[in-house]
């Protein structure tokens, strides 16, 4: 009896301290919603004052001024702002919960060229880190395997789901290739300097990737009955149904990677990172390659770089006419809720606010190939959006009151808000 009591009390204790894993996902939209009086930040570089926005069955049906007749539930958002849900590319959200706890880590499979590894089946839709994205406006993400040369295949998800099937909005959208680097970190434990040294194996590693891709392509043309999983997994990038995300930073790496990949007839190539992309702007334009540039809240790579280099790089690329989005693929997942502020940082460097917003909405949707449904506030697109009390790109004013994913009225509570309320309640005697 005592044992059972112990088990019960332990269970109760666990539930009460850890809370339920995630907020309950919202049900499908049943009633039309009208948001009135808000400043709508469209996500395509434009803005609409005093906007009325109506959505029904998960889709935006009307976007207009005060003249629009309200339908269903009416939300007065006068003085407030509406944004399309922010999109976070290149993240392993839901694949790893606590960085230091190995048991919670599913983001990096062994093997070097493993495009057949699919992130989506390991995606934990009930991750506490994932739900913490939503109160800041980050509602969509590209769930991406990490490590190796070809890390695997990503899937784009929305952040309010019961399970991974519910979550997926674009299944197996792309393959992620970490291009070899011409410099590598010194192995200081072997007596090399702590900084970077030329990578003598660069050409060899490059050839390895190219050979793999050539073989994958040849395999696709052969119609062989014997299945080679890695080769088979690459076919989408050759037939244009999947994107190839190439992570490269240096000038040489960028030029090598894009030329080689284009030569093999890969239609949709995205440069991820691109620390020195500003030095090869014409090349990127000629090849029609969009850039998912590194988040601004990172340090310059080189001591002699301008202190504000990472702040202004996105602006330099935008000004040059490239299609640019922001990612924080190399950062810890919990940081991704700061995505809007990475964009805000570029405003401080002189980029217009609405253009900065595109870096995490409309542009990103285009780059990821989900622009038909997401990324901007347009009639016919998914009602994946939120209302903020103030400017959502500034931490000072980013305050969400409502958020919707595919028209579903999602909770903005999290494990963290619950703890906040519980302890404030304790102190305030509630």
């Amino acid at each position, binding site marked *: 009896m005592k044992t059972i009591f112990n088990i019960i009390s332990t269970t109760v204790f666990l539930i009460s301290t*850890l809370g339920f894993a995630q907020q309950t996902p919202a049900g499908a939209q049943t009633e039309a919603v009208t948001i009135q009086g808000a400043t709508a930040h469209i996500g395509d570089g434009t803005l609409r004052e005093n906007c009325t926005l109506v959505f029904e069955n998960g889709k935006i049906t009307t976007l207009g001024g005060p003249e629009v007749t309200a339908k269903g539930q009416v939300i007065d958002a006068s003085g407030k702002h509406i944004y399309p849900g922010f999109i976070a590319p290149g993240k392993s959200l839901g694949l790893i919960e606590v960085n230091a706890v190995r048991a919670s880590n599913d983001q990096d499979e062994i093997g070097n060229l493993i495009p057949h590894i699919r992130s989506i089946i390991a995606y934990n839709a009930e991750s506490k880190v994932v739900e913490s994205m939503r109160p800041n406006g980050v509602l969509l993400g590209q769930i991406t395997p990490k490590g190796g040369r070809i890390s695997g295949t990503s899937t784009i998800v929305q952040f309010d789901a019961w399970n991974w099937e519910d979550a997926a909005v674009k299944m197996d959208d792309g393959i992620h290739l970490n291009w070899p680097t011409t410099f590598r970190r010194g192995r200081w434990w072997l007596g090399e300097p*702590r900084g970077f040294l030329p990578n003598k194996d660069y050409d060899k590693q490059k050839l390895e990737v190219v050979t793999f891709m050539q073989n994958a392509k040849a395999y696709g043309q052969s119609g062989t009955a014997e299945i080679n999983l890695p080769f088979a997994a690459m076919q989408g990038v050759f037939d244009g149904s999947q994107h190839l995300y190439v992570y490269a930073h*240096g000038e040489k790496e960028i030029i090598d990677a894009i030329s080689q990949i284009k030569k093999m007839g890969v239609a949709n190539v995205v440069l991820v990172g691109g620390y020195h992309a500003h030095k090869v702007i014409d090349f990127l334009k000629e090849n029609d390659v969009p850039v998912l540039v590194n988040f601004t809240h990172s340090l310059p790579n*080189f001591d002699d770089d301008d202190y504000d280099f990472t702040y202004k790089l996105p602006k330099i690329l935008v000004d040059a006419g490239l299609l640019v989005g922001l990612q924080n693929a190399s950062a810890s997942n919990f940081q991704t809720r700061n995505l809007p502020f990475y964009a805000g940082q570029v405003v401080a460097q002189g980029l217009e606010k609405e253009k900065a917003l595109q870096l995490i909405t409309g542009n990103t949707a285009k780059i990821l190939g989900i622009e038909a449904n997401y990324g901007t506030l347009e009639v016919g697109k998914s009602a994946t959006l939120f209302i903020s009390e103030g400017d959502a790109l500034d931490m000072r004013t980013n305050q969400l009151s409502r958020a919707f994913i595919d028209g579903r009225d999602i909770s903005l509570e999290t494990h963290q808000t619950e703890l906040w309320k519980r302890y404030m309640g304790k102190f305030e005697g509630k």
Partner: protein
Amino acid sequence: MKKRFLTYALLWACATVFAQDYFPKNDGVKAKNNNYTAFTNAKIFITPSNVIENGTLLIQNGKVVQVGATVSIPKNSVVEDLQGKSIYPSFIDVFSGFGVKMPEKAKSTGRSAQYDAEREGFYWNDHIMPENMAIAKFDYDEKKAKELRKLGFGVVNSHIQDGIARGSGVLVALNDEGDASQRILDDKSAQYFSFKKSIAKRQSYPTSLMGATSLMRQLHHDMNWYAQGKVETKDRSLEALIANKGLKQIFAAGDNGNVLRADKIGDQFGVQYTILAGGDEYEHIEDIKKTNATLIVPINFPKAYDVSNPYQAAYVTLKDMRHWNLAPTNPKVLEQSNINFSLTLHGLKSSSDFKSKLMKAISHGLSKSKALEALTTIPAAILGKSNEIGSLQPGRQANFLITSGDLFEKGTILYENWVQGVRSTINDRNQKDIRGDYSLALGGKTYQISISGEPNKPKASVKQDTLKLVSKFSFKSNWLNLAFTDSKGDSYRLVSLVDAQSNNLKGKLIMPNGNESSFTATKTDSIDQKSPVKATSPLSKALPLTFPNVGFGYASKPRQEDILFKNATVWTGETILENTDVLIKDGKVSKVGKDLNPGRAKVIDATGKHLTAGVIDEHSHIAGLSINEAGHNSTAEVRMTDVVDAKDIDIYRNLAGGVTTIQLLHGSANPIGGQSAIIRLKWGESADGLIFPDMPKFIKFALGENVKQSNWQSFSRFPQTRMGVEQIFVDYFQRAKEYDAKKKSGQAVRYDEEMEVLAEILNGERFISCHSYVQSEINMLMKVAEKFDFKVNTFTHILEGYKVADKMAAHGVGGSTFSDWWAYKYEVNDAIPYNAAIMASQGVTVAINSDDAEMSRRLNQEAAKTVKYGGMSEIEAWKTVTLNPAKLLHIDDRVGSVEVGKDADLVLWNNHPLSVYAKAEKTLIEGAVYFDLEKDKMLQAAVKKERSQLINMMLNEKENGAKTQGPKQNKKPKFHCDSL
């Protein structure tokens, strides 16, 4: 060991003429040579400053008997006429590993670190080995001796270059013919120290430079305690250290910062070390000068980087390129600053580079006489052996060089290096210079022989009219051999002992048919004495130093200015004042008000801008050379002030984010960490110049996963649980209490750096900033502190502080937390961004800190998150990165708010300071502008230009045939709490 000695002695006794008088002799008769050798007609450098032309050097039995312009030569003298030649004392290297084998590197066992010493009867730390004697490991190395003599060295002082206390050296003359009884000039010559651990020992402590520094201090205390007879057990290390006290003390520091560090240790204990420098002293020459230390200076000037590939060139920092540019000027700068120094081979990858590097130093301004001093008289003086070596005054050892002329000119030939009166021939000085063109008539045909190249190593070519013939030539000890085959295929061989008196070459000829006859080759032309014209690059221009000497350093140090900020929005600390003027004068805020009169102050229009106090980061790890001393579970003795890196580019980047003051904290590798450095980000000042005036004393403590070593493979160090962490504190504080009580009662105590620091905490003189995560441990430390009757000053990180905010407020401890970090470890599961707001609501003084070089430069934005999460007011939010951390650091009397009388540590923002859109336009510390957005634009352009300039210089040097090194980036890691 003695046995080996004896064997050697016996061996040599047979071979040498120097056998000791009192040794029996069984292989012949005792034959003593008391003759003199007289070197006449030479230019003699008796000392670098005492030079005689046409003098005589008289030696006997390995020593100088007389030297001068008029020396009476005894009848039993062998006379060597050195007409036209020069004599120099041979060189001495104080810092050598000659004949002493380095110990083998300890193999890593791959298991947990080893925390205890493995020796018995010695000091508690295995890296302290003053009992080591180089003589015990010494084996005369003839091959190496020959190499060294070839470079001009006659005597070296060798030691075991391993460990922190390395023991004594051995002074050796490079005399192949003598035996140990002659060669070993001193078997206990100088005592050596360094900051580097032994490669042969695995004991973990010290893992850092600051640990090594502390260990040196504690070692001195322990030595003194032991010398007073207070230790009952035997410690052979301390006994050796005591015995070595009378020796010359040499510290292998290794760079300009370490030179200052080593000297500071010496100052504390009344020892003036002679210090092995790093070759970068030119950067801080004034500070170096103040040490009064004699330096041992390497000349391992870096090779140019190969920057021919522009993509790769990007990895080479301006700092490294500048060092390439300026390192060859280092000896000159030392000379000009009147700093006493010797030169050493130490640090050269290949000793054969010695001459070229030395010549480089001279071509960059080092005077020849100083160069000679640095190789002779000064090293002799460093070793306290001026009466024996280093000059050619009577009574000194006959260690000297015979050269064809000026030792420090290119092309000068070193003929002989005499050590202890024994000649080593490097180049035959009697060999004739036969270079020139000769005509040889043979069997009706005429051949032209052309001899060129180095005078001591000539080469020859043979021509028949215009046709070049296949030939083979050698010339040694004046014997010439030449063989050639003419156009018809006939081969001729010529042999000649060249006649010193004749211009022509005469000798034996062997005909193709084997017949022998004689030949005469008539000289037709002398060689052009001028060296062949070779394209030499114009000397690379030495570029000016900046403060600090890295990219974005300033041409001169920023100075205090009197400034009036007009019409700003001023965040005073507790209020926000619109349209307000702030006058700063003499580094202080002088007035805050409306329409202030500027007087002579510079006026800055701040309309539409915000003026605030400088941002203060309670928890930073920038500007440190090391962060964790992880070798013990308590390291209260180590000091971050020992390892401040004033050249860290992150200082500049933090200034650009409005940060003016930081607490440079020890890491979280152990429950009791090291002492903090509170520094101001005065970019351009030396490390000591950054230290906050009257710096309050702080120490880092840590709790949780890091100190339990939960997240890496380490299972042997106590504590492994939070339960153990408590006991560490109780144990140390109890011991500190007893120590302090004993000391206060007037009883003698072994001075324990660690206990001293912990006692300061108990006495309220030092404050704890404790890395903490979960509520249980936070509560625990407060209880421990209460038990020992003190208060914890600050919990840093304090991610579950919100759960015990009431208890914290009651204890009176502040909280310095991250704005929104979590999910990286198990113990941050319940970390919430509302933490700051909740703690503040309960009356805890709350700061937002960084622990991260990136985040620290936007702490204003992190403060803004306290508004977003938990709804703090903007002024309260702003205080979390200014006045509150100032309070927590006990420096709020000087900084943290804009108030009359406080230091003018200010930031002018172009926008609301809590906004992501705000940029710091000017950052001031004590009224000096340390960051200026406009100036930064110029610096960005200047860095680009200078990089290009240096890259071109390097390309030039490469094109002119200089050796280069591959491009690489020398980069310090970015530190966090858990960086080891």
